């Protein structure tokens, strides 16, 4: 992309020993796999997509052996999941409360405020829960992953791990990927439940909707398919966001600027991919 010449110049300005080290034992993936020459933006995008796809295959292949060290995965579930809990719960609560206010306002025009529970549950389960969780997850856990792995790359820790005959894909990338993949659906489910209670809070206390009507309408109109659509969405988003984040860190330029850029790019790519995939999964479920 456009930053390539600048990054090259910076890499050139490194101390000669360092630059030689980078080119030496780094293996095929230590150096950017951007292809030779100076690709245009379009070609660069295609190359990046290809790089991500190949990386995904290697990552999935590395996931099996990664289960040999479950403690690493638990650590990453903690990092990606438990540490995102506060922001997810707060966002879920306020999203639900806004749904309660807006839904009650809208439904009151048609005299069917009792449907607030259904409206809130369906919009949360099918759409808002997975999508907002994924966006927040990209911002909270995705950036942490990218900058962590990027800094490992910049400080040659990945190379050091490789020198110790340990595959960094198995030891560093796969546990983080699995941790994010496991954490994301759980976070989305927590977001949904908290959101429902937020909607009930506003609907029942503020708008005076009968709580029994709220819940019985909701329970009679929501079907298992709605819940499963949300869960499948959150699995897909978890896969994509974590993949983008791990890839971004793994293939970041080994400079301070490069790590910053990779982190930004993770959020941007993960966000629009979330929304794109959201459309595709929703269309597939219709």
């Amino acid at each position, binding site marked *: 992309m456009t930053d390539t010449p600048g990054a090259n110049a910076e890499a050139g300005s490194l101390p000669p020993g360092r630059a030689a080290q980078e080119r030496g034992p780094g293996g095929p993936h230590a150096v950017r796999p951007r292809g030779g020459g100076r690709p245009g933006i379009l070609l660069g995008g295609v190359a990046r997509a290809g790089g991500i796809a190949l990386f995904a295959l290697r990552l999935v292949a590395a996931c099996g052996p990664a289960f040999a060290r479950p403690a690493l995965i*638990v650590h990453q579930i903690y990092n990606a999941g438990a540490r995102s809990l506060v922001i997810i719960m707060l966002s879920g609560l306020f999203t639900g409360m806004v749904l309660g206010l807006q839904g009650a306002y809208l439904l009151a025009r048609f005299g069917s405020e009792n449907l607030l529970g259904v409206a809130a549950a369906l919009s949360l389960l099918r759409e808002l829960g997975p999508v907002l969780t994924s966006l927040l997850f990209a911002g909270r856990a995705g950036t942490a992953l990218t900058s962590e792995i990027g800094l490992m790359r910049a400080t040659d820790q990945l190379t050091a791990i490789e020198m110790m005959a340990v595959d960094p894909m198995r030891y560093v990338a796969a546990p983080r990927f699995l941790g994010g993949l496991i954490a994301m659906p759980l976070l989305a489910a927590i977001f949904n439940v908290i959101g429902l209670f937020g909607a009930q809070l506003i609907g029942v206390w503020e708008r005076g909707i009968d709580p029994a009507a709220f819940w019985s309408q909701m329970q009679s109109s929501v079907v298992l398919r709605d819940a499963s659509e949300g869960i499948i969405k959150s699995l897909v988003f978890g896969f994509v966001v974590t993949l983008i984040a791990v890839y971004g860190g793994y293939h970041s330029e080994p400079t301070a600027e490069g790590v910053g850029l990779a982190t930004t790019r993770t959020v941007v790519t993960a966000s629009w991919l979330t929304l794109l995939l959201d459309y595709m999964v929703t269309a597939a479920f219709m």
Partner: protein
Amino acid sequence: MRANRTLEIGTGFFVLLGFAALFFLTTQLPSNGLKVGGAQGGFRVTAQFDNIGDLKSGAPVALAGVTIGEVTGIGIDPQNYRAVVTMRIDPRYNKIPDDSDASINTQGLLGGQYVAIGAGGSETYLKNGSQIEFTQPAFVLENLVNKLFASFASKPAESGQGGSNSSASPSPGGPGTNPPAGGQPDGAKPHGGGRPK
């Protein structure tokens, strides 16, 4: 060691919370999910309807507006091709007269449909397995609209002799366009005539 312990506790807390939320969303919330909390007690009664409209399994059963149970099954009686609705009634409400009637109503303008029980006057009560004999089918909006059009269409034809009357009549149902307009809702006409209420 202590840091490791906090990490494990934090992860365990998160995972348990997450699975509890998933469990709630998949089993307690959906109407066709596997209900763990509440589907055991109560007794079952059935009712046969000509048309259940949009009634779904899990819809509430209400007596005087109070929810007393839920619809647990919907099927067809192969003998007479009527819909058979099975309901679970909460055991607290075991004094419902067995000559009560059941009708399918709509909650609000856009709400879901539910079964409304109207209490009868009998001394014997509904019990497990009993059937509600008096039923009223779902209110289907299209039939009503058809009936309305049929009555609009037939009215000017019967009393359409006055010139002032025909000019006052609404433009779609003018006397000239009457026969084709009457022909369109043909299927609804027997209903309109057959059930004068």
